[in-house]
């Protein structure tokens, strides 16, 4: 696996980002900054605007006002495929693996896109050997080699989610966005997944939306709390747990 490109300055910056849907202001003046290697979780009660914020960063919506930067470059309003080419990779809340293909082919597709080889027709030349080799290395690192030839739709749910994390990492991103990576999993599966994500995203910058507090405390080194379209607090997991404003936002300390 290649290490993320080194560089100075924050990986992701949001300046005064607001989003309105008609008369409803979902996000108001969000300022947020992610440093290289940071693992940030975005939490908050239902309706706080987490998904909207996620959709703005991942390119699904353009913000109504404000600026989003990935590294040096402005990315607000850019389509998803260009964002990926600039170094942002995301997972989905609902599994998005290609069921008709093998696990190997799924990851191969993702590695391929890192090399900008989208239109070449033939599978010859050095670069293709590199892509095939990196695909195998990544699968080995993820300890999925025994499943490499299985058709993705025949994999167990948690295996499919693991595959998806692999694909998200395989494009070689500077920033990884995870949308509820353990949704629909049992306690034990979620714990395994946290360990797996930790291993796969080592040294990379991570922004995730997650409901499950065990997952948040297991993966994140900083937490931002979103409430009523604004960032209420940002800090280490311990500081957030003790923050009375956060406890109020979750209705009397009911941090589920």
């Amino acid at each position, binding site marked *: 696996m290649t290490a993320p490109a080194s560089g100075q300055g924050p990986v992701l910056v949001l300046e005064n980002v607001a989003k309105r849907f008609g008369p409803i202001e979902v996000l108001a003046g969000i300022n947020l900054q992610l440093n290289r290697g940071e693992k940030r979780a975005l939490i908050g009660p239902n309706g706080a605007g987490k998904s909207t914020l996620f959709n703005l960063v*991942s390119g699904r919506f353009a913000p109504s006002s404000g600026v989003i930067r990935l590294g040096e470059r402005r990315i607000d309003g850019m389509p998803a*495929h260009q964002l*990926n080419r600039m170094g942002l990779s995301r997972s989905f809340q609902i599994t998005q693996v*290609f069921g008709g293909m093998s696990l190997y082919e799924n990851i191969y597709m993702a590695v391929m896109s890192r090399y900008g080889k*989208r239109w070449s027709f033939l*599978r010859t030349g050095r670069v293709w050997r590199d892509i095939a080799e990196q695909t195998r290395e990544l699968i080995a690192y993820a300890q999925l080699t025994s499943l490499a030839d299985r058709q993705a739709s025949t994999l167990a749910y948690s295996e499919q989610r693991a595959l998806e994390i692999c694909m998200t990492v395989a*494009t070689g991103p500077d920033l990884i966005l995870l949308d509820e990576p353990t949704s629909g999993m049992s306690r034990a599966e979620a714990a395994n997944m946290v360990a797996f994500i930790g291993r796969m995203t080592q040294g990379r910058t991570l922004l995730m939306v997650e409901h499950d507090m065990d997952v948040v405390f297991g993966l994140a080194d900083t937490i931002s709390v979103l409430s009523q379209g604004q960032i209420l607090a940002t800090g280490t997991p311990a500081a957030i747990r003790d923050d009375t404003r956060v406890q109020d936002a979750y209705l009397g300390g009911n941090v589920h």
Partner: protein
Amino acid sequence: MDAFLVALLNGLVYGLLVFMVSAGLTLVFGMMGVLNFAHASFYMLGAYAAFLSGRYVGFWGGLVVATLAVGLVGLFSERLLLRKVRSFGHTQELLLTYGLFFMIEEVVKLLFGPTPVAYRVPDELRFTAFTIGNSQFPFFRLLMGATALVMFFGTFAALRFTRIGLIVRAAVERPQMVSALGHNVPIVFSGLFAVGSALAGLAGAVAGMYYPTSPAMAHELGSIVFVVVVIGGLGSLNGALAASLLIGVMTSFAVGIESTFGDLFRALGLSGLALPGLEAVQFSSIAGVLPYALMLFVLLWRPAGFAGNRA
């Protein structure tokens, strides 16, 4: 026995012709889900394009020009028209391509007249490939069949073994994820549509020489290709090939039967029960209905088609 062989061969060749046109529709409708009613119009345009350009670039050059030209027409139709209505759903697509179907027909009538143009098999290809009994099998029919088979194996291999094929299959399944992996899905879809149209163009260029090249070409195959894609199973090339051959052979044999319904009723001892008008009807005259009857049965018995994996 000879008659049987001839009917079988003719049926297979007709089936392969139907497959040539359905192959493109399998990509466009079966895989991308675009209800392109004008697909057979592209087939007709292919014949005219080859007819026009063949005078300058020769027969083989005409095939190439027709393929590329119709591919371009498809590309523009997708990018300038279909893309705009895609988000409104299938009804709008159907209405738009229905309009396109008639527009293309009228424009062609305006330019070339409603009657067939003189697009003919070149003399050097007019020879008999082999003889069965008293009937001669022209080489050109073989060439049509061969084109269809090349189309089948070419498209199949491109989808299965190339990198673009991998992206196309993935984009058809999960466009959102493919886009998140950095592939430009709208361009992939435009390209796929263009290739589907180009295949129809090539089919027209080859078939227009043997069958009359007229504006009615689009009508003759317009609905049957949808039948093939539905019977074969959406998005399945193998299914489309099987369905085309079945329809071709079935139609060819039905046309060859000389009995009437009256003969059938008499054989069953039911002559008194049948309507007098029906007794005189020949079996061969229902040949045209058979594909549609087959589609009804397939839809009732196996809604996903022969090889389809989604309904």
